[in-house]
């Protein structure tokens, strides 16, 4: 595949532009998309750049179609992806479910906007529950929550690789702030960093003559008997649990002696990082823990941080009304540390918000 970025270089870009460059660098061959703010510029950049590198694009009639055309394209052996937000993410849960059921290496970029319903076109962290556990399945998905523009680039590339290696639908969970703001980062060709890209391969439409070189493939996502489905779902769960330790990523700072642990994800973790530093400067022993993968969740790592710190309290800060909070509670069931919430649905959180909350609860 043609080089896209060439020499590693500094860039100053919006998050949506970075998604496009990362998808190109990762070897994505086709994007199917439908307009919704704040992800539109992913399509805008892709439609300008893709023809220069022999890549394809289709603007579909809706998000349902965008998701299902991706399902078709990956079955045909192409690295395909889509991007959406908010109500579009709701509609895409149907094709995401098919990808989960049929183990399709679908990649989706989610730029969260305010909710419920049409909400705002601006920003939130209210698509955590939907992206991790949406659909009528068991949440066998891989969800990376990025915090910086460098991470958007890194994790979009990684997203294509884990999707094709493990065959679970993969999500890069950003938000409107990350999508629209500019920030410096370094862009690079994956191979220059020693990243080997996993090659796509067809699930149907394989080479060879049927009955001579190979048997026909019959893919399906519906079963006649309860027991048939049961076996499939248990196998998926077993596979997911087995690979989870290889997928899980998190970030932890100053937890060893912390009296209070501050948990956040995505762009809010940058405010949490600043807050921990400022609180420490004021003599308050705060610690920072950030799940990078929301699915699978670094639950053991968080339990370990609680144990080694001996913290008296935990604060969950998020731009939603408790979606990360509920996820954490189910993941660390049995821990007795009191958990407080700083819930600011649909609005940004800065270090002062977190510092003030910490001081009010300590």
């Amino acid at each position, binding site marked *: 595949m043609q080089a896209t970025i060439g020499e590693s270089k500094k860039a100053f870009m919006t998050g949506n532009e970075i998604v496009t460059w990362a998808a190109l660098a990762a070897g994505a*061959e*086709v994007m*199917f998309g439908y307009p919704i703010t704040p992800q539109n510029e992913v399509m805008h950049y892709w439609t300008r750049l893709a023809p220069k590198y022999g890549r*394809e694009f*289709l603007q*579909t*009639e*809706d998000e*349902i*179609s965008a998701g*299902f*055309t*991706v*399902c*078709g*394209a990956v*079955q*045909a*052996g*192409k690295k*395909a992806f889509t991007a959406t937000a908010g109500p579009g993410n709701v509609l895409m849960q*149907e*094709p995401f*479910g*098919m990808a989960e059921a049929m183990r399709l290496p679908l990649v989706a970029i989610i730029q969260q906007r305010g909710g419920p319903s049409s909400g705002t076109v601006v920003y939130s962290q209210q698509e955590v529950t939907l992206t991790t556990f949406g659909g009528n399945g068991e949440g066998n998905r891989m969800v990376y929550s990025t915090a910086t523009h460098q991470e958007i680039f890194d994790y979009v590339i990684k997203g294509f690789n884990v999707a094709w290696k493990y065959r679970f639908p993969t999500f890069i969970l950003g938000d409107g702030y990350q999508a629209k703001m500019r920030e410096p980062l370094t862009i690079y060709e994956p191979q220059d960093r020693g990243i080997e890209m996993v090659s796509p391969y*067809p699930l*149907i*439409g*394989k080479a*060879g*003559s*049927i*009955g001579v070189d190979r048997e*026909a*493939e*019959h*893919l*399906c*996502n*519906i079963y006649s008997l309860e027991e048939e489905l049961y076996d499939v779902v248990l196998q998926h769960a077993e596979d997911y649990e087995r690979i989870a330790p290889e997928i899980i990523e998190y970030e932890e700072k100053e937890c060893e002696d912390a009296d209070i642990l501050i948990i956040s994800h995505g762009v809010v973790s940058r405010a949490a990082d600043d807050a921990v530093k400022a609180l420490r400067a004021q003599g308050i022993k705060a610690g920072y823990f950030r799940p990078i993968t929301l699915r699978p969740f670094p639950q053991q790592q968080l339990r370990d941080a609680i144990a080694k710190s001996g913290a008296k309290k935990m604060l969950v800060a998020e731009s939603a009304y408790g979606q990360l909070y509920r996820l954490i509670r189910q993941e660390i069931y049995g821990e007795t540390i009191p958990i407080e919430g700083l819930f600011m649905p649909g609005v940004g959180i800065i270090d002062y918000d977190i510092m003030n909350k910490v001081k009010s609860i300590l």
Partner: protein
Amino acid sequence: MTVSPAVPKSWYLPSKPHKFCPGCGHGIVLKALGEVIDELNIQDKTIFGCDIGCSLLSWNFFNCDSTQTHHGRTTPVMVGIKRSRPELVTIGYMGDGGGYSIGSQHLLNAAVRNEKVTLILVNNTNYGMTGGQMAPTTLPGQKTETTPYGRDTDVTGYPTKGPEFLNALTQDDAYIARATVSNYRQLKRFIKNALRNQIEGHGFSFVEVLSTCPTNWRTNAQQTLHFLEDEMEKYFPVGELKNPLGKGDK
């Protein structure tokens, strides 16, 4: 001397006998399709995709690579495959509910974009798999589980005429036809034309097939044929609405 019944080479024999109800028209449509796949010699490069509903029972009907999706979503899945691998021959197989109701936005937009896929839609005037509810194609006055007193057009409108609306949406390079299981040779010819239209790179190809559902119609053999030939074919005219292959190819 024994003469074996003619079974298309492209049929997947371990899935036979098939699972459609006695008297159902799906078997006739799929036999015609199988013979056409054989005659065009496209078994190795065919992707057969089926919807939810009775059409689902064809998920392993052919000895061809096959896939299956949600209700109404066969069209975008086939579009994704065809756009990714134009050398493949993609056949989407669906019912009237999947095509004209829950998947209608996909169907009409695929037609507008002239997607080079072949779609075969089986019209039996009801939702068979779910137990015989009203479909977009249910005839005025026809009794179904959700129109137990007959379809009232004041309440639910008139039956969808799919080929007619797709004809209005497409350009000259699309193939649009309505066939019936009561005329096998014509049905097979229309399906063959629809596949040739895709293979030759013209564009969107669509065949609606009028079919039978004695189980949900609660009809015997004679009544079934009567409803198909005298009721359905009267309301839904059979024929080619658009054929870019030229008259000589018919």
